[in-house]
């Protein structure tokens, strides 16, 4: 990144950090929280789905696992950060459990295998923990939104930052080489399995971490909720619409998604999903680079003039 | 009958044919010979429509084939036998043959065509109820050719019909191809077995590295060939 980009980035981070101080409206902060949450989810999905090219349809399982571990530990009295870490690690363990056998199979089997796994967890968690998980009254009394916001900000920065570092590293090069031509990469000594598992682990860890933040943030929710398929779909669609396989893409996608949802919430509920779904299809069929791709093409076309 | 003018063909970004020009006249048996990877199969695929040319002209009688889809080209009367035959192993010999007559005009005369094919390849009639997957290599080739004949082609494109066959069968195969040609089917034959191809054909084209390197009557090329036998044979 050049100096200007770094300066811009620092500016954005500064603005985001100052937000809760400047804006007193809780609803706006909550909105920002959701943007940051989706940024983390979409970015973490992108590490496996975009950089590594393995379509993961079970990202919600990682998200959910993170919420389970963190919520349980934190409400049991653990400190927040170890709880969050535990959430991330549980997600990784789950990922490896599935990934090691699943990566032996061809691409689509991994996709529907992860989908099946995520559904299994959704149903099982729903049946095992059918009661709402609520923050006990004394904690509720001292509940503050700002720390939650900063946690999500931190997770989002950590996720995208790790993604950036990874992509620009030798490991990242290996991961993308495996994505493009697995056999060729293998013949050059790049272990396909190791690199895929690495991408999977990083993706799962941050998915779980985001889940942990979710568990810290929500006052009361059904434990089954974070395992819902919509978390996976939404993350995937955000990454694609923004620009799958790029760093900025998932961020753009997440912001776009939340804004769209807010705009349309006044009109018709769930319309935003129809619009988003349509956009997603259009991107897959016609604009595989998403917003970032369109931006790049426009830039190049203008540069030629 | 078939005129190919300055055809360029690409596999993705990789050019594989440069300015190919050929002609096949009605009733002829024309051979296309050349080393491995020279572009023989590619040329056939361009004619039959499986590969669209990047530039150039293909005319069959009065039709411009360049834009036509492969199945339309079959309707027009060109039938290709793929390298290795590629029969439908899960279906019976008879079903394979019947599918060959899928095209409307061929379907009407299906029974007569079947009799004709059985006459040329009696073995197929013997095995007509057997699953095609159980046939031997030579029988599969026969089936592939028979199947192509069922579409009543005016022009038959054969891609290495002798490939992988035992020498005795090879001779037999070429005899049958000659017979088919005698019975009125124009044939464009791609072959690595240069000697046999030149014995059969009226004329031949030599293709090397995606370009036509020579052409002439079979007799002319035999002597030409003796010079090149080092890397054509």
């Amino acid at each position: 990144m050049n100096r200007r980009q770094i300066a811009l980035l620092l500016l954005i981070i500064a603005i985001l950090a100052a937000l809760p101080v400047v804006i007193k409206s809780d609803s706006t902060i909550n909105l920002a929280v959701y943007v940051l949450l989706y940024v983390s989810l979409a970015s973490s999905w992108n590490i496996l789905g975009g950089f590594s090219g393995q379509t993961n349809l079970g990202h919600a399982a990682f998200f959910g696992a993170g919420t389970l571990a963190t919520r349980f530990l934190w409400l049991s009295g653990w400190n927040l950060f170890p709880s969050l870490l535990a959430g991330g690690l549980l997600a990784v363990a789950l990922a490896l459990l599935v990934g090691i056998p699943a990566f032996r199979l061809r691409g689509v089997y991994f996709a529907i295998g992860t989908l099946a796994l995520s559904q299994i967890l959704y149903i099982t968690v729903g049946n095992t923990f059918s009661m709402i998980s609520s923050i006990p009254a004394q904690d509720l009394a001292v509940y503050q939104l700002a720390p939650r916001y900063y946690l999500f900000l931190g997770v989002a920065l950590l996720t995208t930052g790790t993604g950036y570092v990874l992509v620009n590293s030798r490991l990242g090069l290996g991961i993308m080489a495996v994505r493009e031509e697995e056999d060729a990469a293998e013949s050059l000594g790049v272990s396909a399995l190791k690199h895929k598992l690495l991408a999977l682990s990083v993706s799962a860890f941050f998915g779980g971490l985001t889940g942990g933040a979710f568990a810290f943030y929500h006052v009361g929710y059904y434990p089954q909720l974070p395992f819902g398929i919509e978390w996976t779909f939404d993350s995937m669609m955000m990454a694609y619409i923004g620009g799958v396989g790029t760093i900025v893409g998932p961020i753009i996608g997440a912001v776009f998604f939340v804004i769209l949802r807010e705009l349309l919430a006044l009109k018709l509920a769930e319309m935003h999903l129809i619009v988003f779904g349509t956009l997603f299809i259009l991107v897959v069929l016609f604009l595989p680079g998403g917003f970032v791709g369109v931006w790049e093409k426009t830039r190049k076309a203008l540069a030629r003039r | 009958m078939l005129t190919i003018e300055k055809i360029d063909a690409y596999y993705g970004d990789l050019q594989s044919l440069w300015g190919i020009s050929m002609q096949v006249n009605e009733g002829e048996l024309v051979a296309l010979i050349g080393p491995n990877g020279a572009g023989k199969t590619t040329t056939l695929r361009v004619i039959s429509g499986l590969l669209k040319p990047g530039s150039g002209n293909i005319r069959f009688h009065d039709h411009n084939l360049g834009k036509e889809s492969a199945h339309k080209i079959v309707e027009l009367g060109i039938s290709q036998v793929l390298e290795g035959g590629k029969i439908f192993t899960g279906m019976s010999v008879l079903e394979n043959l019947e599918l060959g007559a899928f095209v409307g005009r061929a379907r009407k005369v299906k029974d007569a065509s079947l009799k004709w094919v059985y006459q040329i390849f009696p073995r197929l009639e013997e095995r007509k109820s057997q699953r095609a997957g159980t046939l031997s290599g030579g029988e599969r080739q026969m089936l592939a050719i028979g199947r192509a004949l069922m579409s009543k082609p005016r022009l038959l494109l054969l891609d290495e019909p002798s490939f992988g066959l035992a020498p005795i069968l090879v001779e037999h195969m070429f005899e049958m191809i000659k017979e088919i040609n005698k019975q009125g089917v124009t044939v464009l034959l791609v072959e690595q077995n240069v000697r046999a191809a030149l014995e059969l054909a009226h004329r031949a084209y030599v293709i090397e590295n995606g370009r036509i390197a020579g052409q002439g009557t079979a007799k002319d090329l035999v002597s030409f060939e003796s010079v090149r036998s080092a890397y054509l044979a």
Partner: protein
Amino acid sequence: MFDALAQNLVYGILVGALYGLAAVGLSLVFGVTKFLNVAHGEFLMFGGYASFWLFTLWKVDPFVSLPAAIVFLLVLGAVFYKLLFGRMVKLTEAEKIQNTLLVGFGLSLILQNLALRFWTADTRSITTFYSGAVFTFAGVRFPIVRLASMGIAFVAVVALQLFLRRTYTGKALRATVENWEAATLMGIDIQRVYLLSFVMGAALAGVAGALVSVGYSIDPTMGMGWTLKSLVVMVLGGLGSITGTFVGGIILGVTESATGYFLSLTYKEVVGLVLFILVLIFRPQGLFGTKEG
């Protein structure tokens, strides 16, 4: 006790026939085109709603309106093929599977939410005057509606097999599955074959959906669950085998019932998915698979 078990198994077989029917539709499409249409469940859902509204608004008996459901899904399938899936014909096999998976998800999301908007989230079901009729044999109850549904599912699958085995067009379809290039060289229009398979798959889903609406219940979010069951059965029964897939459906139904009976209802819901993952890992060609998936 034996009675309860036998009853459970019967229910499993009855619903398994519908699983099989739905899966056969998906398997047909995938086998011919290599499209993995994960909006298959939504097609099924639409078939169910077509049947439901024809009954609710115009009192058309759901078994009588089956042809209408078929036509509706043939048209719907054709529309989505032309708009979306038909554009992916020229891709490589891997790309086809991947992209249709994604497009299918987008489509399922859209269809699901359209259904939610227009028909609300309420669960619907068709109750006719004969809905409660039961045929009892050896102490086991066979609800007439479900029995008839199984019969229809069976007939549909047999009809499909006859079509594929005995008709010219059916053989053209099978030829395309084996080797599409060779099929093209027979004069077979692959685009038409793809379209035909796709709409037939949709129609089969529609029939299944109509039968579900009268024998069980429907709601806008049922799609993904049925798509998953179809995928499970497809893999269980083995890709490339229509009969195998149908039998796989019955096996899933029975397995679910048995699990619910011996273990618990929770496990009943997930056993199919667990089986799926196990089969994927240990035997990807399924139980009856004729070709590698």
